[in-house]
């Protein structure tokens, strides 16, 4: 069963910005899934459509098999969402906010009160349950939104940059908390523009840029791919097949060019030595830049301190 299934999703805002350009995505039940992408990639728009805060221009979305077009109420009942921006009433108390939210999902008030105690305690907000929400610190406000999203015990929890602007200690305890929730069976989708966060938490990852998914893989495969570099070597003599060298992946691109994949802990010297031993002379070498690496570089620049 897919927790989330998205097909051909497009969104053009009224001002003409095309935020999503035919996006496909599947997230399996039980997964801890990262959507990584720079600002403006379309992450919030995607979440907005899934949670029906944004209307889609075309495409299909279903949540645990409930299509948003035909089975909206049941689809919504499965989702808990922690938005990117604070969206609770600043003049209400944390307790009121979470108890009411449970009510909007049909949870009886007595049950909601018990859950409020449970989640506000788990997120270290219990002492603050009666204060006005606007007096909470940034980190507390984020945690309040997490508590609120859990009040109806959703099967799918979606968090849009939950740790933006949260200091390192609180970020780590939030990670720990989310890991536990996931282990208890809640599917989690998290957006971030910090690779480090995705690396720490998630099993699978999609990289989104310019309204499209440009990479969708397991975290470990992605990291392995980021550990390798590709070089294009121009050779003096014509080749008919790619030379075979133990420990390196080599592809023939055309009769004078080969592509060599080298992991970052291997040296370039070895490959040159092996090639000259085989009588192959290298004229020039250039680094092959791929889109993933480019993205990665941009993300690394964004890395949190």
């Amino acid at each position, binding site marked *: 069963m897919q927790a989330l299934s998205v097909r051909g999703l497009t969104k053009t805002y009224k001002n003409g910005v095309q935020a999503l350009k035919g996006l496909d995505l599947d997230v399996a039940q039980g997964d801890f899934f990262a959507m990584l992408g720079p600002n403006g990639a379309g992450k919030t728009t995607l979440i907005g459509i899934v949670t029906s805060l944004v209307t889609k221009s075309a495409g299909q979305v279903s949540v645990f098999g409930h299509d948003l077009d035909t089975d909206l109420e049941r689809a919504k009942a499965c989702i808990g969402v922690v938005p990117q921006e604070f969206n609770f009433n600043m003049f209400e108390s944390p307790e009121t906010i979470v108890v009411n939210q449970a009510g*909007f999902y049909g949870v009886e008030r007595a049950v909601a009160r018990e859950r409020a105690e449970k989640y506000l305690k788990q997120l270290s907000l219990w002492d603050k349950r009666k204060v006005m929400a606007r007096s909470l610190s940034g980190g507390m406000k984020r945690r309040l939104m997490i508590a609120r999203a859990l009040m109806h015990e*959703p099967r799918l929890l979606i968090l849009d940059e939950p740790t933006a602007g949260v200091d390192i200690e609180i970020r780590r305890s939030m990670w720990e908390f989310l890991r536990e929730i996931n282990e208890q069976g809640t599917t989690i989708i998290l957006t971030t523009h910090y690779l480090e966060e995705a690396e720490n938490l998630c099993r699978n990852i999609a990289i989104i840029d310019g309204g499209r998914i440009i990479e969708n893989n397991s975290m470990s495969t992605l990291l392995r791919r980021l550990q390798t570099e590709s070089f294009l070597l121009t050779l003096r003599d014509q080749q008919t097949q790619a030379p075979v060298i133990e420990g390196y992946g080599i592809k023939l691109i055309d009769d004078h060019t080969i592509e060599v994949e080298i992991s970052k802990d291997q040296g370039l010297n070895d490959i040159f030595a092996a090639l000259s031993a085989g009588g192959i002379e290298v004229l020039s070498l250039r680094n092959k830049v791929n889109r993933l690496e480019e993205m990665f570089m941009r993300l690394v620049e964004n890395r949190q301190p």
Partner: protein
Amino acid sequence: MSTEALSANSIRMTGLRTIVIREYGRIVRIWAQTLVPSAVTATLYFVIFGSLIGRRIGDMGGFDYRAYLAPGLIMMSVITNSYGNVVSSFFGAKFGKHIEELLVSPLPNWIIVVGYVCGGLIRGMLVGLVVTIVALLFTHLHVHHVGIILAAVFLTSAVFALAGFINAVYAKNFDQINWIPAFVLTPLTYFGGVFYSVSLLPDWAQHISMANPILHMVNAFRYGFLGTSDVSVTRAFIIMGACVVVLFFWALQLLNRGTGTRD
């Protein structure tokens, strides 16, 4: 018990109750803004128009002016407060983004509309009660037909709660939620027979007044007290009922289309 195990119906009923509780909480929390001003205004009207000027006016529609004025003032405060509650609560929720709490929930749009309208009804009724108590300090209120009084005040409150909702959906800034009350609602109310009987007006002005729905509402309500009206009470109720139906579907359609609420 996860929400998915609940029936759609029980989610809706619990959700509606929660919206109503929250709206009631808001009215009580900011009571100095929601309940007090109308009591003060009504008192001033009774002192100035009722007691000082009213004594010179003598009878109106065959009744002591203060007894004639009281139903009008009650209705005026019901209208203002029903409208004001929904327009500021819903616009505030849009402005503070917490309307998203409802928009992501599994509650259908009609429940959201009904919930906010209930908030307007509660505030309208509470303030109506407060102003009635103020009125009793100045005059004696005769009751001709209690059913008509309650039906008229309920329907009027619903009409203006819905109107406030629609105003809030369209509004893009605070000016736009003040504009309609100042330039449309207040004039219609003042010309709507709150202070005088339209029989005092020349014919042409009486005809124009008939197009003002507030005139019908105020007169139906006053009929419940005094047993006299400038207009047909039956027609007044038809107008109120029709307004409720039309405005409700208008409001619902706006939410369904996402006007002012969804990008």
